[in-house]
């Protein structure tokens, strides 16, 4: 019996670029290059490792986003995923996490799955709630924020390192997993992988295919509204001193003047 793994990935604006908001207060995607969210690379990596351990497994990468988001799918395919699903629809512009999770859940159900894997958060919105919401929507266990993950005999096991304790978790499949950047270095696509990715199937779906009404998604349908986005004023230049033997004492003087000592 084949293990069906769906990896949710996001195409995000490059954090090293100059990211900003568009006039409608959605993320401006035109000015900054996009790429596969770094934290999702760890999810792809864990999917590949789990698939390697399984007798028979198939990995589908799934994303919701504009045409360019195919780049994120291609990257995951070149790492070794088998096929891709791209949900694209003009009505999706401005969709928030509630709408996105609805679209993902429907697409996951349509694709068929035993295991859903996601990164711990996106590197643009950084909310970190999508995996838990997916588990809620799909009605399956959440095994989230794992720094180690394994699947054996229909059971997913993992370690969750929290602020106060480290927990060993276990749940039966089907389940939703999210992994942290501690789960293991993501592999680089090989030349062979990049060439092979060009031939791998990418299925396109729109809202109609998923039986989702346009008013449930998009900017109008969003569950949250951004009223304003203000660029933070550049910090006024601070005092910079060169240490000539008294740097530590001078700094102590500053800290005392600010009442930290």
């Amino acid at each position, binding site marked *: 019996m084949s293990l069906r793994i769906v990896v949710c990935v996001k195409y995000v604006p490059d*954090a*090293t670029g100059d*990211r*900003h908001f568009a006039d409608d*207060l959605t993320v401006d995607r035109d000015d900054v290059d996009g790429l596969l969210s770094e*934290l999702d690379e760890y999810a792809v990596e864990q999917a590949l490792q789990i698939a390697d351990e399984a007798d028979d497994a198939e990995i589908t990468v799934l994303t919701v986003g504009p045409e360019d988001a195919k780049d994120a799918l291609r990257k995951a395919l070149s790492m070794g995923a088998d096929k891709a699903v791209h949900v694209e629809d003009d009505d999706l512009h401005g969709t*928030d*996490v*509630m709408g996105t999770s609805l679209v993902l859940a429907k697409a996951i159900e349509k694709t068929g799955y035993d295991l859903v894997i996601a990164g*711990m958060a996106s*590197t643009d919105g*950084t*909310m*970190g*709630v999508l995996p*838990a*919401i997916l588990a809620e929507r799909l009605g*399956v266990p*959440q095994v*989230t924020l794992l*720094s180690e993950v394994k699947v054996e005999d229909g059971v997913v096991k993992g370690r*969750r*390192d*929290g*602020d*106060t*304790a480290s*927990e*060993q*978790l*276990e*749940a039966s499949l089907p*389940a939703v997993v999210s992994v*942290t*950047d501690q789960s293991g270095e993501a592999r680089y696509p090989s030349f062979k992988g990049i060439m092979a990715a060009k031939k791998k199937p990418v299925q396109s779906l729109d809202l109609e295919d998923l039986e989702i009404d346009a008013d449930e998604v998009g900017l109008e349908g*969003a*569950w*949250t509204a*951004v*009223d304003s*986005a*203000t660029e933070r004023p550049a*910090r006024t230049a*601070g005092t*910079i*001193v*060169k*240490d000539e*033997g008294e*740097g*530590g*004492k*001078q*700094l*102590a003087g*500053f*800290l005392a003047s*600010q009442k*930290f*000592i």
Partner: protein
Amino acid sequence: MAEVLVYVDHADGAVRKPTLELLTLARRIGEPVAVALGPGAEATAPALAEHGAVKVLTADAPEFADYLVVPKVDALQAAYEAVSPAAVLVPSSAEGKEIAARLAVRIGSGIITDAVDIEAGDEGPVATQAAFAASYTTKSRVSKGTPVITVKPNSAAVEAAPAAGAVEALAVSFSEKATGTKVVARTPRESTGRPELTEAAIVVSGGRGVNGAENFHIIEALADSLGAAVGASRAAVDAGWYPHSNQVGQTGKSVSPQLYIASGISGAIQHRAGMQTSKTIVAINKDAEAPIFDLVDYGVVGDLFEVVPQLTAEVQSRKG
């Protein structure tokens, strides 16, 4: 006045500071009703009452510790149905965000995470957030359902505001899903005796310039002289010099202390994403061109192995 549910983060009855901060924000938009779950839930009442909770709903059951997240969502939902609040506020811990998000789905509401401020608005609470590594400040509202908002530590002052804090038992019936993810073992993190990183008023961080695990004691000594938490950059964590649980940055923890001291950290965007909302920023780095100096209120261009111990000694002597 409308009631506002506040989810209580506590350890065996000891209420964590971010929850007390949340009560300050909750009082701006209504009357706080606290929800405390698990062992020691009732013991939280005096601290919550002192900071403005008119009521404390408590529940304890083995499910809260034995299974992940969902039992707590069931309980918070029970509280939501009992109270019909105007908003639900939850501390922005990893678990807090997951609990809040699942509740939001169940009650058909939008969610805002990592707010750094909340004010009352004409159309409900308005949350301030930092976006894109804190290069933007946004103001947002939940536009569908009852606002569910998670709030970052250090977003408000803890204020005493004595209220009744009447304890009431919360009746919870666990859903079938509650037992889906078993916690088969739990190892408490060894206490360092230092404040928790995300909650600390002062954070002292070390990076690549610390040049080895064996040198981190220099950073720790400064932290201890200031009563601070210790952070580390991704470079230091990836090199194995300091535990991942102390990583500050985009893929680690986001901190917003009163004072952030970066030592031997260049200030790559990855790191800045996790600390740029700190109120006062100080850096010590050999490289005068390091991007961290663009952010600082005070910077010292110099060798951290000279500057940091001198600073530590000076802090100690000034404290007498």
